[in-house]
């Protein structure tokens, strides 16, 4: 038996707020927070690839939480299924779209941030056909066999680091 002494006690508040609204509110707040984080990351990150990962991950999670909250709000299976469709579709397509953009950006040679230290795809893409070959070593051997010239091993899609005035890498 709950005794309500004042209309502003915690139990009165808890009785007034329905559980469903509580869950929906929590999902909405979390979703809106992740949306804000995604947009801050998109505005502040230094290069395209970092912007893309923050936009895709945080943005998808934020919008997914918001739509899940909408689905739970109406207490109707109909609306819940529609919202789950939206969430599932977003979660399925956002990584694919992000991958497509990243691949296209890499192909048109949008440079990564100068502080990035690793380019694992260097030498792995055939520039003519835009197809992926197995490893940089295999690709290098292939190119050397066909062109007859020796490669240095530190080429990236964006040229050799020593050509840019950066510190030359010594073996």
């Amino acid at each position, binding site marked *: 038996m709950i005794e309500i002494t004042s209309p502003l006690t915690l139990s009165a508040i808890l009785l007034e707020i329905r559980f469903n609204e509580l869950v929906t509110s929590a999902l*909405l707040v979390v979703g809106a927070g992740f949306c804000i984080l995604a947009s801050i990351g998109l505005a502040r990150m230094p290069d395209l690839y970092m912007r893309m990962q923050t936009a895709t991950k945080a943005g998808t999670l934020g919008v997914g939480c918001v739509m899940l909250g909408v689905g739970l709000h109406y207490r109707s299976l109909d609306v819940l299924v529609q919202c789950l469709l939206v969430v599932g579709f977003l979660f399925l397509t956002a990584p694919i779209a992000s991958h497509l953009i990243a691949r296209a950006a890499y192909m048109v040679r949008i440079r990564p941030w100068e502080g990035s230290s690793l380019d694992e795809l260097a030498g792995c893409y055939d520039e003519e056909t835009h197809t992926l070959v197995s490893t940089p070593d295999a690709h290098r051997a292939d190119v050397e066999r066909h062109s007859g010239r020796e490669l240095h091993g530190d080429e990236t899609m964006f040229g050799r680091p020593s050509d840019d005035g950066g510190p030359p890498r010594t073996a």
Partner: protein
Amino acid sequence: MSAGLMIIEAAGSMAIAAAPGAEHAGSGVEPPTGYFGRLLGVVIVALCVAMGATAFRLVKGPSLADRVVALDLLASFIVGAIGVFSMQTGRFEFVSVAIVMALILFVGTAAFALYLEKSGRRQ
């Protein structure tokens, strides 16, 4: 456990709503008031701030790919905003609009990415 209960409860309320004589002037439920209505307003404002920061990148973005990423994120924020708006007005038909928006979002982004790759514009 609680999710299952919730679905059962939702199905029950749907059966009540579909029963003849149920009092619904239009479709949907009453627009929320009280703390929940205010929360919806705050969420809309937060989404608008997020859209503003995204639009900044859309205008400023140094490369075409930056603009495509910003447009993609903007469209998914619009999906969320449509959902919150449907709660504010209490009309659940807007959720279908959100579905259509999510479909168009992917097709548009994929088309932009393919165009970017095929055109081969170097920076």
